[in-house]
């Protein structure tokens, strides 16, 4: 995980801790709007969240300060790091795009579209392998959900309803 190591890793730790702190604090404040019975455990959990998040945040900041600034990258390291970022963004875009397909055209269209896009354009498998796996996966989903378990997904595939 070289692309999230060193100072950058410590910063990411701090961001995760800060998000946790914010979430725990929000629930702690909101819990005062409920009755005592509903509030007690919520406050206990929120206190645990706040304390652990603060300790995690402090540890991350200390680690950040104690870590020497990242040394200039070699060309190879830089290329590796950029490659990971590129792949991460590619996968995120594929998933989000496919979720739109899921909403508009339903679960089977999603499965097929995601498998084709992912295997062909991200993983660079041959068209033959891509189509074999995409069709197989979609068919498996259809057999399992539609035929064996008789499940319908009315919440998705809005354009086809």
């Amino acid at each position: 995980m070289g692309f999230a190591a060193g100072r950058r890793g410590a910063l990411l730790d701090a961001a995760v801790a800060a998000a946790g702190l914010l979430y725990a604090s929000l629930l702690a404040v909101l819990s005062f709007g409920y009755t005592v019975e509903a509030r007690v455990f919520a406050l206990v959990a929120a206190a645990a969240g706040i304390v652990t998040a603060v300790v995690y945040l402090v540890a991350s900041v200390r680690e950040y300060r104690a870590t020497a600034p990242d040394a200039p990258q070699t060309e190879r390291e830089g290329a590796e790091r950029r490659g990971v970022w590129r792949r991460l963004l590619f996968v995120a875009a594929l998933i989000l795009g496919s979720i739109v397909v899921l909403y508009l055209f339903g679960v089977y269209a999603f499965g097929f579209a995601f498998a084709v896009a992912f295997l062909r354009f991200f993983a660079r498998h041959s068209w033959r392998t891509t189509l074999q796996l995409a069709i197989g996966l979609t068919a498996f989903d259809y057999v399992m959900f539609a035929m064996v378990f008789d499940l319908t997904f009315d919440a998705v595939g809005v354009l086809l309803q």
Partner: protein
Amino acid sequence: MTEAILEGVGRALAGPGPLIILLGTVYGMLVGVLPGISGAVGMILIVPVTFAWPLDHALLLFAAAWGGSSYGGAITAILINIPGESTNAMTTLDGYPMAKQGRASEALGASALATALGATIGIVVLIATIPVLRSVVLFFGPAEFFALALLGIAVIAFVSGESVVKGLFSGALGLLVGLHGFNPITGVSRFDFGTLYLQDGIPLFPVFIGMFAMAQAIELAVHHRTVIDVAEQAPMAVSFAGFVRGMRAVFTHFGLFVRSSIIGTIVGAIPGPGGAVATFLAYGHAVATAKDKSGFGKGDIRGVIAPEASNDAKDGGSLMPTLAFGVPGTVASGVMLLALQFHGVRVGPELLGPNLALVFVLLTSLFASNWITSIIGLLLARWLAKLSIVPTTMISAVVIVTSVAGALATRGLFEDVLVMLAFGVVGYLFILRKVPIVPMVIALLLVKVLETSLNQVLQIGDGSPALLWTRPISLVLLVAIALIVASPLIRPALRSIRR
């Protein structure tokens, strides 16, 4: 108890039971063989399939998949030096050198028998302790349940990652996520932000799928694109005579095998440490007690028998706290607990009393799958090992599509997919920064127990929590929690005193 055993075994073997066990075992083996996908993820992915099933059948499938996954991982550990599961990592130390020496069959035979017999010992110990657990659980009131559930989270947070702080943070986050929705005491919806969706709380299955399956699939796709170097494979020739030699070795080193199985069962019974710790301890024990240690790491069969026996024996052990107290020690037992809760079964005195036959339905499947997986594994070892060189991108594609479909199948709500994706991102960040995921999901499973117990304690004490430290068992558990939580401060202080 004999009646419950007979009824449980009868229910497990009735109707489609044997077929479900076989299917679950084969599925578990495939999951175990595939790199990067753990048995727990495999179990989570089949959860949606079982929504409409009777509880018996759902438990049979989960237990079979659970039992099937560990030997699948041993095959690849021995033949191509890639542990299918993290729990098979110790097996590579001697299993792979044996395979390189042309003794793959011997290692496979030894590991198959150690696996099946080890699991049997774990199950037998579990059955033997059921009467004790039934008595112990009667001593547990709300104070003890609260303290034990909290201890479970603390222990898991302590052992499941490199940093105790990160583990505790993960556990606390699980408690917070579990607060949304209807409160078990007042029936009032909390923290729903005015949405109907959050009134039911954040659904557990999509969270599980997101945190484990989705996060792991993204991580596999982005960071592990390389295919295993096929040139590194050991000779895959396997022979029946070799299998028999390996199996005989288990009896030659029977004392070590039994001790390793007991280590596995004990470690399994402690919430948190899991199979990796059990196999590490068993391997360490094998080395420490051997008169001739020179062969370890170079292809000593004892280095295969010890970790494999403990790895499968721990499953029986891990069911003890799960079934008696509702505190799951591993993700796999957590999924089992979730399935029981989903079908309205209450663990503890009820499960160990009137519902005891259900425990034996589960154990029959776990027992059978461990033996079936060993037999099938031996017959198909060469072909199964070749599955390990499936490109990880293909596995990622299958897991991502299945995760989305699985989240949707939970309740048919599109929002569940979004929740699954959101927790997939959280899980990926956790993997990236080595924040353990297990404490969070276990805490999420225990929120209701914790909140209900705490409120009962307060009701009994007229608003005072004193019951928590006036009951001896609860006090001991609370002291243990305090020591664990304070350990990041205590350890450096002790170190400086020693200096």
